[in-house]
């Protein structure tokens, strides 16, 4: 069991000593049951920190943003940032290290183990509560949650409300950390990795297209899936090629010669292009925090695309992202015996 009191004490200590400039964590929000990001810079505020199954976000994103902000500051505070990281989040930090986005010394990872549980899926929770509104979710034993609603307490089986990714999680214990709270549980007793993916793979080609076409059709191209992803930190995304320029020094020629890989219209063809490019660009980098899928306002199962490539990379190339920051990236490496038979 993770006791928030310990985390708060640790955060307070870090801030008091000034060893970190900020603690990235979670706090209660006003918008709903999910916790919201907290940016604690003052030891006095450490008590705002919460830790419970509503801490769904992958805060590694804000490490990226902070780094970007720093590059614009004249005299940046270069002390490390402490981040509260679940298992998946810690892998995101590892990928960012692998991509030299920042250095190990720039981050202090406060790992928290999800134990046998994980975080809730908002939609599943509201379904399980049958319309009632949750105001608080706490772990209850090793396989259920105690949910508080206006009408009282409800006990909900974890398997019913855990986020899909948590159900298949193989890294509930943060591999990379400076300190860690909570224990490691080898067998969590949920379905194996890629179970959901397997069901989709088993469909026929036409069924799969029908499935994806329907989903892609619906995409608003709000890019929330991209904005929330810690790995989507490119200064200019292929979809920005429409207009965004990244730098006041960008020349007229560069702007005039921008490639329009994707048109702005949110139609199926352009949306597919967006999602396919994104999936390919995340191959070997996505660590399945599933933030992209969670934030999608129209529930597009984006995670499956990433999952597919993750699985192929694992099966065919023995590559798993976010485990070793020293390894070259999936597509920046190869083995002589990579699969060859698909080539004619």
């Amino acid at each position: 069991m993770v006791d928030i009191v310990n985390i708060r004490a640790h955060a307070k200590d870090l801030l008091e000593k000034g060893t970190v400039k900020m603690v990235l964590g979670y706090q209660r929000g006003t918008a709903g049951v999910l916790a919201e990001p907290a940016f604690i810079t003052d030891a006095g505020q450490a008590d705002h920190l919460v830790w419970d199954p509503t801490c769904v976000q992958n805060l590694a994103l804000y490490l990226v943003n902070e780094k970007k902000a720093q590059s614009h500051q004249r005299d940046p505070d270069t002390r490390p940032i402490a981040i509260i990281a679940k298992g998946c989040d810690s892998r995101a930090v590892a990928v960012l290290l692998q991509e030299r986005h920042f250095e190990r010394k720039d981050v202090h990872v406060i790992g928290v183990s999800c134990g046998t549980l994980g975080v809730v899926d908002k939609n599943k929770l509201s379904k399980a509560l049958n319309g009632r509104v949750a105001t608080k979710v706490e772990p209850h034993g090793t396989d259920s949650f105690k949910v508080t609603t206006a009408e009282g307490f409800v006990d909900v089986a974890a398997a019913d409300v855990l986020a899909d990714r948590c159900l298949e999680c193989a890294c509930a214990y943060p591999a990379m950390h400076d300190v860690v709270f909570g224990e490691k549980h080898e067998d969590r007793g949920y379905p194996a990795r890629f179970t959901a993916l397997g069901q989709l793979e088993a469909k026929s080609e036409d069924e799969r297209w029908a499935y994806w076409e329907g989903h892609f059709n619906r995409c608003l191209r709000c890019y929330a899936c991209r904005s929330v992803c810690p790995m989507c930190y490119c200064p200019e995304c292929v979809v920005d090629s429409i207009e965004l320029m990244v730098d006041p020094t960008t020349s007229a020629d560069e702007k005039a010669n921008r490639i329009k890989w994707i048109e702005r219209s949110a139609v199926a063809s352009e949306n597919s292009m967006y999602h396919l490019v994104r999936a390919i660009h995340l191959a070997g980098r996505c660590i399945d925090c599933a933030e992209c899928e969670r934030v999608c306002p129209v529930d597009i199962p984006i995670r499956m695309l990433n999952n597919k490539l993750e699985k192929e990379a694992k099966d065919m190339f023995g590559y798993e992202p976010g485990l070793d920051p020293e390894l070259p990236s999936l597509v920046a490496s190869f083995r002589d015996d990579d699969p060859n038979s698909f080539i004619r």
Partner: protein
Amino acid sequence: MTENVYLPKLARIASIKDEVVGARAIKTFQVEFPDGDMFEHECGQCAMISVFGKGEMMISIASSPLVKDYKQFSIMRVGKVTTAIHAMKVGDVIGVRGPYGNKFPVNDWKGKNLVFIGGGCGLAPIWPIIQTAVAQRSDFANITVFYGGRSSRDIMYRAELEKLRGVADVHLSVDQAEEGWEGYCGFVPANVMSTGVAPDNAIAITCGPPIMIKYVIQNLKGLGFADEQIYTTIENKMKCGIGKCGRCNVGKDYVCVSGPVYSWAQLKDLPQEY
């Protein structure tokens, strides 16, 4: 149904003149409207110019409203559409819709001294007033023009400015000293200051890079100009030109409709979002 505001008129490029060459090239285009169905405009107004296949952009109409056979645009090459139009030839056809925006209250300025202060590409929006004032010279008192570029090669409308010397007081400047340059060396605001202009019965109209405008206004205030005596234009990114696309607003004002012309009296109360 009323006329479709998004549909541009087709216009033929009648002449192209290189004003400035190099990295920040400026070209002046005069365009004609084939069936003579050209719109009327007022000083300070703009038009949306289309290069089909590339996009649209908002450009000040740089010819005087008194000119009835063409419209003039002076365009700096900075990005996609501007690059495309710079590559066009005489005879090529572009789209033009407009006019958009408010206008300089030139009629209210009859009998006054006009002081124009421009820098870089910022001569374009005020050029129509200069042209109008020159054409109706007797309606106005003194006309003074301050204009500067980074170097003498960056000075647009050079020949026209020289010609103007007969009827107006023209002060050209370059940012840095340069061989063969006989005018002022230094920034435009400093030129204004060192030359000195009297605020009495005067209207100052300034346009240019934001930083220049800032100092010009500061200096004009120093010279005793009242907020109401200072006019400028602001440029924000625009897509529709008709106050709907939602990006050019400064506070409640959509610059494409309520601007781009502002007196400092109006502008100083608006949020600094331009």
